[in-house]
């Protein structure tokens, strides 16, 4: 980012993300984005990919940030971890936020670090009071050290814990109520979890605090079967968005109105034009509910 564009960004009060469709920014597409300036509402990046000293990633993100609103999405903070949050990682996030002034920062209701080990997966939590208190403390800590409200993403899950005493939706509602954080509503995660746990996605949505939604994620899933031969959906971000998820998205929009909507694709990344077409499809849905 050139010094002048950085200044322009930090002088303006950075507003929330536009209520339009956005895309995950993949390094494979840096040059094409800059050369074609696609008409897209915003880009989202994984914070950890930019926790490097310099080089092409910062070069291109700076240029793209000068042209587009940005969402910073963390995948490594381990908010649900049993231990304390990693202060170094929080400091790295603060540095990135200072540098790029993103319109939104979000993380997951999950854990990914334990002791010295980082497991590189978003792992499920037992929903009990001890976990609730820990997650709320961590969200409070993130929000106070980053001096901004964060969005917390609902998980995709495959398993349940005997220790859980709360429903996932009650747990999420309570974290949002206690910490004032927003909800990153991942509609694909809702669908995946509901199929995996034989729950009705519409009643799951009804039980969530939809008034707190600040962003929506849409993605594709992979399909497997469990030991009983039942459908087991896997949130792999490696496929086009399923029709069932588009339908659920339509129902969400009817309730919450137009919302910043991200198309996520992290594996088997296709040509940029393929992702752009999915973003245009989301944009069409957004237009249907725009005043």
């Amino acid at each position, binding site marked *: 980012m050139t010094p002048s564009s950085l200044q322009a960004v930090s002088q303006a009060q950075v507003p929330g993300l536009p209520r339009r469709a956005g895309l995950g920014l993949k390094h494979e597409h840096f040059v094409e984005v800059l050369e074609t300036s696609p008409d897209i509402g915003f880009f989202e990046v994984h914070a950890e990919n930019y926790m490097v000293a310099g080089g092409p990633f*910062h070069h291109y993100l700076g240029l793209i940030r000068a042209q587009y609103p940005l969402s910073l999405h963390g995948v490594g903070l381990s908010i649900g971890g*049993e231990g304390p949050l990693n202060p170094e990682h929080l400091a790295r996030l603060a540095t990135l936020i200072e540098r790029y002034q993103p319109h939104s920062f979000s993380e997951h209701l999950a854990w990914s670090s334990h002791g010295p080990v980082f497991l*590189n*997966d978003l792992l499920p939590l*037992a929903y009990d009071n001890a976990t609730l208190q820990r997650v709320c403390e961590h969200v409070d800590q993130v929000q106070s050290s980053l001096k901004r409200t964060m969005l917390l993403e609902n998980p995709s899950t495959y*398993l349940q814990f005997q*220790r859980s005493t709360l429903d996932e939706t009650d747990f999420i509602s309570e974290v949002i109520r206690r910490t004032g954080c927003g909800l990153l509503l991942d509609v694909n995660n809702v669908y995946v979890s509901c199929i995996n746990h*034989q729950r009705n996605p519409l009643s799951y949505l009804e039980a969530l605090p939809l008034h707190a939604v600040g962003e929506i994620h849409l993605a594709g899933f992979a399909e497997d079967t469990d030991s009983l031969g039942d459908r*087991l959906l896997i949130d792999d971000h490696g496929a086009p968005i399923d029709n069932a998820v588009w339908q659920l998205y339509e129902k969400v929009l009817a309730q919450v109105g137009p919302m910043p909507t991200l198309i996520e694709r992290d594996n088997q990344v296709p040509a940029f034009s393929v992702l752009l077409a999915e973003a245009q499809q989301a944009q069409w849905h957004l237009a249907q509910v725009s005043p």
Partner: protein
Amino acid sequence: MSLHDDFSAALLAPHQPCPDGLFSSNGADPASRFSVHRNTVHSSLINALATAYPVTLQLVGEAFFRAMASLYVQAHPPTSPLMSEYGDTLAEFIHGFEPAQSVPYLADVARLERLRVRAYHAADCQALDQQAVLQTLQGQANLGTLRLQLHPSLATLNSPYAVVAVWAAHQTEGGLATLNPWHAQGALVVRQGLEVKVFAIDPGSVAFINSLGRGNALEKAVEHALDASAEFDLHQCLTLLIAHNALTHLHLEQKVSP
């Protein structure tokens, strides 16, 4: 043992049973669902290594690489959420990995690939103007006391094998036909602008650059270079560094008053 102790131990060890206290709402064996997480952990880490070490992978083939990477993941899981740093010690692991001994230069190629990843993400630093460097060098009476500061992305490697030739042969179609890996070669890795470059250099140049990197003045660095190789060519090595924007500062030795 806490819940996450059990969970993470079972994730990392592929043959350990699924932890207690889990169930599936349809009554399915929780192990069949726990394996989704275990697969994600292992395959995402193996994929990260495959992406970071593409030539190492080509040298042994996909199946061998993934089997080796799987053992590495179990022995050395990441200790940081920064995936760009994961696999820093893969070359050492390969060096001690018996089944890989049939490709003796494999560890050094992995070392070179790691230097390339580090150079790619290294700090940005404005290089000196090439003309200005040449003028300073030509007009300097006490050339030997000059200290040259190197670009943060710059690194070298000494290998008993033709590590740069092996790497370069895998960058182009048909590059393998004339490859002879059985001679010593040094490597210079540096990012020029946005592009990481790799050069074959002699052991004298490796010693010279490493000496500069430790903060030695030019005279001392030349001494180290000649110790390493009598054929060291200062002019050629400086030209290489200057032409690829590898120098970021020139300092004259500060005389310390008594």
